[in-house]
């Protein structure tokens, strides 16, 4: 018996000793990322935590936020986004002018810009990038940024780019959100090569011209960008920027509190709210950023019989409920959705009520309905609209019937399982629709299944979201007939809208373009192919006890990003906080002391108990 006993005690004590040893080893090697403050001589590293993965850094194929974050730091655009209003500001191009006929733009570029491998960056690189975009037509937003009515894009000398078009346009100064790639590396690649190119291969840093350079990428785990000391707009004050991927938001927030990471852009309003309350105890500062994305509820608008139907819709056909093609039904649904409740109960107030597909942060182009135009929340009015349109409940089952077919107004409603709030939104909306006699069959599915349903036009309604560019061109294009089968949410197809889209592309000045874009938003707002439910805000948290220089460079203003900006202004001013950095580390080491003492007490109690029991048991044995 004794042997078992001894083994037990040895195991327990050993385990606890290991725990303590690890703890004290930590105490010595602690100051997790306070290498950031430069104390131990390691590189000054700013560490972001994210739960989003990066799939590609190919600038022609990027889609997701982490991808754009890396690209914006690794590459330059021809023009920057203005820090305040996101209009074109001097960058690689310092000035530009339009010819009097409006068909030719001449951009004058800096002559001191070098690629990260030392080669000079010239107008030829810009021409190469834009022409490749045009030639390869990758089917994503870049197609719309370098429009197909372009006649030619040429470098007339190393610092002059001439862009001619068939019709007058302001496209070259929106600015085009196309990262300039080095011709000396990619110049000989075919479109197929470019489509397949990983751009970052192991051990070879990605060559761009930006303030940072991607130097390491452990897929699915982390990626590292190293500062470019020769950046033309000045060297960053940090050595490295690193992104670490977590799979669990709670653990990520804990790491932020413990000082293991320095910054997060949170997707969860609940966790953000917690940090608003207790973040300052950990030296953290919370920041509510701009509403750059929206959530929408889309209706299946594909009607193969319609003379205006998009070709793709005619090809695939549609299983969408025809009742949803009746504007009265969609209008009634729109009046039955309480966006205010969604904003407060689902988004905890971190957002604003959705209206159009151009979010308010596109200050120049966002149109907001006023007065009689506003569609509010009014169940009675909604019921009235359906009554007037002849949708009565003929079989008295609580669900209205379609006067044409006699069928119940019951819609399939697809919700995303990948979205934290998808099913909550669905529950609210189904509840409201029930009050106006419309039934829903909700299905929560993964994105793969939703994409298939969407491709095949095999759905009635679904909820998803968009994060549009600062310039609205691309998001507006998603409602043109051409985009059905591409990026169109609904296969909406309307000749007037298509014409307005072309008109805004070729408007010769911003004021005219603004008016056309207002009309387009107004048209979508009254036609209701989809309902923009909310604009959700970026929720940022960073360790302000260690870092400074983020808050003086918020972009755009007034509500902008601290980090992950369209043009990286704050990345150049971010620096370790000078003298005040000791506060946080002392609080964490006192936390350690308390933890250590508590643990020691537990160990002592455990040992005493075990030894006492051992004595008793031996008595039993005797």
């Amino acid at each position, binding site marked *: 018996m004794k042997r078992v006993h001894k083994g037990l005690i040895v195991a327990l004590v050993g385990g606890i000793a290991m725990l303590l040893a690890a703890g004290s080893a930590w105490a010595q*090697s602690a100051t997790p*990322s306070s290498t950031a403050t430069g104390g131990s001589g390691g590189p000054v590293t700013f560490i972001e935590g994210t739960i989003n993965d990066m799939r590609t850094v190919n600038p022609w194929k990027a889609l997701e936020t982490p991808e754009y974050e890396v690209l914006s730091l690794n590459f330059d655009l021809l023009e920057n986004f203005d820090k305040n209003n996101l209009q074109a500001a001097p960058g690689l191009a310092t000035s530009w002018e339009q010819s009097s006929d409006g068909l030719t733009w001449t951009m004058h570029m800096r002559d001191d810009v070098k690629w990260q491998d030392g080669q000079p960056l010239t107008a030829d690189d810009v021409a190469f990038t834009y022409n490749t975009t045009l030639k390869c037509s990758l089917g994503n937003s870049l197609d719309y940024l370098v429009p197909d009515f372009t006649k030619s894009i040429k470098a007339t000398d190393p610092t002059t780019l001439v862009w001619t078009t068939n019709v007058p346009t302001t496209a070259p100064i929106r600015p085009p959100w196309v990262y300039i790639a080095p011709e000396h590396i990619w110049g000989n690649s075919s479109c197929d090569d470019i489509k397949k190119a990983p751009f970052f291969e192991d051990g070879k840093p990605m060559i761009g011209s930006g303030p940072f350079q991607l130097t390491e990428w452990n897929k699915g785990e982390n990626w590292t960008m190293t500062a470019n000391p020769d950046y033309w707009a000045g060297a960053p004050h940090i050595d490295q920027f*690193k992104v*670490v*991927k977590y*799979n669990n938001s709670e*653990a990520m927030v804990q790491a932020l509190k413990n000082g293991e990471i320095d910054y997060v852009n949170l997707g969860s309003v609940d966790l953000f709210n917690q940090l608003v309350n207790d973040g300052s105890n950990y030296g953290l500062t919370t920041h509510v950023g701009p509403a750059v994305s929206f959530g929408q509820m889309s209706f299946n608008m594909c009607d193969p019989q319609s003379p205006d139907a998009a070709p793709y819709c005619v090809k695939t056909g549609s299983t969408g409920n025809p009742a949803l093609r009746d504007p009265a039904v969609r209008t009634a649904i729109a009046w039955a959705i309480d966006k205010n409740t969604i904003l407060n109960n689902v988004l905890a107030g971190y957002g604003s009520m959705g209206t159009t597909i151009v979010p308010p942060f596109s200050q120049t182009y966002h149109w907001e309905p006023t007065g009689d135009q506003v569609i509010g929340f009014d169940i009675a009015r909604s019921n009235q609209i359906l009554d007037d349109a002849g949708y009565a409940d003929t079989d008295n089952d609580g669900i209205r019937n379609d006067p044409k077919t006699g069928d119940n107004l019951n819609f399939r409603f697809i919700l995303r399982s990948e979205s934290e709030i998808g099913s909550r939104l669905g529950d609210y909306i189904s509840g409201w629709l029930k009050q106006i006699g419309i039934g829903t069959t909700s299905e929560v599915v993964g994105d*793969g299944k939703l994409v298939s349903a969407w491709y095949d036009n095999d759905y009635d309604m679904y909820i998803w979201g968009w994060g549009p560019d600062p310039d609205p061109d691309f998001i507006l294009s998603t409602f043109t007939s051409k985009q059905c089968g591409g990026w169109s949410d609904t296969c909406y197809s309307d000749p007037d809208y298509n014409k307005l889209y072309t008109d805004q592309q070729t408007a010769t000045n911003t004021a005219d373009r603004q008016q056309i874009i207002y009309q387009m938003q107004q048209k979508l707002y009254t036609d209701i192919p989809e309902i923009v439910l909310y604009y959700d805000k970026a929720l940022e948290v960073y360790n302000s006890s260690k870092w400074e220089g983020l808050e003086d460079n918020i972009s755009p203003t007034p509500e902008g990003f601290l980090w992950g900006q369209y043009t990286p202004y704050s990345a150049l001013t971010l620096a370790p906080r000078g003298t005040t950095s000791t506060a946080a580390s002392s609080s964490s080491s006192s936390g*350690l002391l308390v*933890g250590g003492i508590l643990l020691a007490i537990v160990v002592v109690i455990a040992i005493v108990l075990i030894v006492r029991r051992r004595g008793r048991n031996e008595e039993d044995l005797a």
Partner: protein
Amino acid sequence: MGTQRYVLGKLGQLFLTLLLILTMAFFLFRVWQPGDPVQTWARSQGARYTPEQLAAIRSDWGLDKSLPQQYVDFMKSSLTFNFGTSTVINPDASVSSLFASGMSKSLLLILTSTMASIVIGVLLGIYGGWRRQSKLDNSAMGVSMLLYAIPEFVLGMIFILIFAGVFQLFPSGLYQSPVAKPGLDHYIDIGRHMALPWLTLTLAFMGEFYLVMRSSLLDVLGEEYISLARAKGVREKYVLRRHAVPNALLPTITLVALSFGFILSGVITVELVFSYPGVGLLSYRALQFRDFNVLTGTFVIAVIAVLIANFIADLTYGYLDPRVRRA
């Protein structure tokens, strides 16, 4: 002669089971998969692909062949461990290289934690069965029931709250610090990051081993041959070591082998909670991004691992209990 036949028989069974499971996997991943994998892939690529290009990819992946032909290909590649390259999560890296890199991290976690939970669980179980109703037994019983009942992810989250949150003793996740540490600190760093996932897995499975070992020992202690041994005047220590424990170990060994599958699923959960980049996380990401080569690879290898664990259990069983061999 008996032993040889026994082993061969078991091997045959193993192979049949493997074929059956692979067939199921084929239907699971190739036939019943929701959505067209090529379309789903194209959609995630951020660039448009022409129908010709999509057809080329389809043919690259062997999806244009007839179903029976696909089945043959699938079985061939599965049995030769040649799962091709990853399609989404790490394009152009071979599935086996991804798996190897994840496995080295997972194995460290699985082996050390399983060992610890078996050793602690079995030792406590022996003690509990031997000294039933003692204070240690009673408290171990309560704790074991609790640990057995709590799902791994809840246990993991609790540990994050306590050890990473309140005491700030260990990091809340990852394999190592974002900025790698030099020299010996590097290994300490990895150890610190492994501490909480290790503790979670160890405790989660310890309870089960304790409970089974304890009850099986209790059964054995009621047997007549134990009374006989005691009646012959054999010392208690000897009764326990030579008569009771070896016989009581049998069900525990079965349990260890059977629970290997659960340990694997526990590893997926724990790696997810702690963002620990092993095979568990790899298979989760494969599922998330519909990288079906990686998904198939991890599935097949996990199946084989479980089957082998069971095979080893069968052999050990035969070694410990000669009756099994002869039967």
